[in-house]
């Protein structure tokens, strides 16, 4: 039985893992870089050890140092969180060799899923749908046309040597097949001196839908339903929700079965996520598997009622899954927004710095995962995510209303954050309707820009407030000419007026 876990991570996820440790009576060991001495995960752990300088490759990615610290502290297991070493097969393997339990899958599963081509082949063999397309370059024109007809329209024809959009053709109509392939080939030849092409199914309105799975070491595997993660910018998820607003019970069941099959195909053990690309008609295709805990795992926890970190630890302990598929159901609706220190009006530029004040919204249905506190300086070395705000509601409409309420009373000063941007997302009709695709943010740039919404009255009041503050400070700073406490004009003004008004 695991008694002490080293968490090879920082920030909110380190604290997330420590919470479950504490709830299970397990000791937690933090590791930290020199830039993180004052980070909350250090203060929150039972033990903490410095593992090197600020840059990740000299600390959080230093496999040797982490193994050494685990041994020194007597930790019997390591939880890698997400990012850093979490999908590093060598690390998983090394832990095994050292007799330390790695809370995650073995090297085989990580390696198989980590390589796109191997993963694709493994999924095909397991009967999990992948995006239809050619795996070898095609030179022959007739073969290309035949392949397109097999795959079905629309398809994307891509120069196999290509890049930068050259030699790329979207084919939507049957009559355009021949001319498009010809054009792509000649363009490819001109640009790259090679007219071989790949053909891939084109997903018109792509949705990113993923399934959470849990598998034990005894061959049991269940899924914990889907998460809809189509609100993305630069391929980074910004808002996630579950259930997906476009899902049907039939497709959910089928996708869930495929997700379980995908995990079983690599003898997976632990918590993992199968990502699918899905079109408007709910045709879905395996994209990749994340062989670790996902950033957005809390929305599944809220709706399915399972503590995923607790289950990860149970699985690592060699226990059998506590749930059968039929024990699980979705209950209500959850949304997560990721609060970043960034300037959303300036191409999402990171905005590190010192947090002066932070006020968390609280109350019914609100969950926070964070490591920020008043006066904390967000280091420049790591991901600028400040917190994950998760809400639960009886249904999607309630959850959206709750998220709006929570974002509206979430105050962070000192650094620019994505809070106002996220709040505007909640107002976009396409988001409210729920049929949005991964193009959502780029399709709504105008609606998502910050606007001057303060009335003239409001800006007058803001100016008066600043002026009052200025007067108060000026009085406080005034040097005493007579050696006594400085006479405050601001205070005197209040007194005088009070008297004249009597």
């Amino acid at each position, binding site marked *: 039985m695991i008694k002490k876990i080293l968490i090879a991570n920082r920030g909110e996820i380190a604290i997330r893992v420590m919470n479950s440790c504490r709830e299970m009576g397990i000791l937690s060991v933090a590791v930290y870089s020199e830039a993180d001495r004052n980070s909350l995960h250090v203060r929150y752990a039972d033990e903490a050890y410095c593992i090197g300088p600020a840059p990740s490759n000299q600390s959080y990615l230093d496999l040797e140092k982490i193994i050494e610290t685990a041994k020194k502290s007597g930790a019997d297991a390591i939880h890698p969180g997400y990012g850093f070493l979490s999908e590093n097969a060598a690390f998983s393997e090394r832990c095994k060799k050292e007799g330390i339990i790695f809370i995650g899958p073995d090297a085989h599963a990580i390696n198989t899923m980590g390589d796109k081509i191997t993963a694709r082949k493994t999924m095909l063999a397991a009967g999990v749908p992948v995006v239809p397309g050619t795996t070898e370059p095609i030179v022959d024109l007739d073969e290309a046309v035949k392949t397109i007809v097999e795959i079905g329209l629309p398809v994307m024809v891509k120069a196999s040597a290509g890049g930068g959009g050259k030699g790329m053709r979207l084919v939507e109509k049957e009559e355009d097949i021949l001319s498009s392939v010809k054009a792509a080939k000649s363009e490819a030849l001109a640009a790259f001196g090679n007219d071989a092409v790949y053909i891939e199914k084109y997903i018109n309105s792509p949705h990113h839908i993923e399934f959470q799975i849990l598998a034990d070491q005894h061959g049991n595997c269940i899924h914990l339903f889907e998460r809809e993660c189509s609100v993305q910018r630069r391929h980074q998820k910004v808002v996630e929700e579950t259930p997906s607003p476009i899902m049907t019970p039939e497709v959910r069941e089928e996708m869930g079965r495929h997700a379980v099959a995908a995990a079983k195909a690599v003898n997976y053990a632990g918590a993992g996520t199968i990502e699918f690309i899905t079109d408007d008609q709910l045709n879905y295709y395996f994209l990749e598997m994340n062989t670790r805990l996902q950033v957005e795992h809390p929305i599944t926890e809220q709706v399915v009622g399972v503590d995923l970190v607790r289950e990860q630890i149970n699985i690592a302990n060699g226990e059998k899954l506590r749930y059968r598929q039929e024990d699980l159901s979705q209950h209500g609706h959850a949304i997560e927004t990721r609060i970043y220190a960034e300037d959303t009006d300036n191409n999402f530029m990171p905005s590190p710095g010192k947090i002066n004040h932070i006020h968390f919204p609280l109350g019914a249905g609100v969950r926070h995962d964070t490591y920020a506190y008043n006066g904390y300086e967000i280091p420049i070395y790591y991901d600028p995510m400040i917190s994950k705000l998760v809400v639960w509601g009886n249904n999607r409409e309630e959850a959206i209303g709750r998220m709006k309420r929570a974002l509206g009373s979430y105050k962070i000063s000192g650094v620019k954050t994505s809070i106002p941007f996220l709040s505007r997302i909640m107002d976009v009709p396409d988001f409210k309707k729920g049929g949005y695709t991964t193009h959502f943010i780029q399709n709504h740039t105008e609606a998502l820009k910050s606007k001057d919404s303060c009335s003239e009255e409001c800006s007058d009041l803001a100016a008066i407030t600043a002026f009052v*503050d200025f007067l108060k400070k000026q009085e406080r700073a005034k040097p005493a000419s007579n050696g006594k406490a400085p006479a405050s004009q601001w205070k005197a003004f209040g007194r005088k007026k*009070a008297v004249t008004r009597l």
Partner: protein
Amino acid sequence: MSYEVNINGEDRKIEILSREGNKIQARIGEKTYDLDLMEVEPGIYSVLYQGENFNFELNARSPKKYIVDTTDEKIEVEIVDAESRYARSRKGGEEEDANFISTPMPGQVVKILVEEGQKLKGGETVIIVSAMKMESEYKVVKDRTVKEILVKEGDNIDGDQPLVTFE
């Protein structure tokens, strides 16, 4: 003493007419406001005006310059007294091009692409800075000549710190 405030770039006359505890009467431009105004936490004010509640968080950039966070937006407010009026008049009103390059946030210098004395074309990249795994290029707007390079590759820098100066 007569004051003006500059609100998001516009100058307005401002005056406190009376004060009793939190209750103040203030005039701004032609409009008079009766307010209940209280600093409820350091730098955070609650302002009640005709029953309506406004929460303002003040971030002082200098003793006279505030960014007022109104929840929905950030308003720049500068107190204009005789001193700042004088300083302004000397500047001639027009903003000049900065004679140095700086970044709006702390980070680390990745690459310096220029040398001291080098003549640059407008649009040329001077320096690349990374913050939180994202690299940004900083360029000159007009043709300039590099005067001094104040940092070296690998340095950690603060926001608004001069990095490279020009003639």
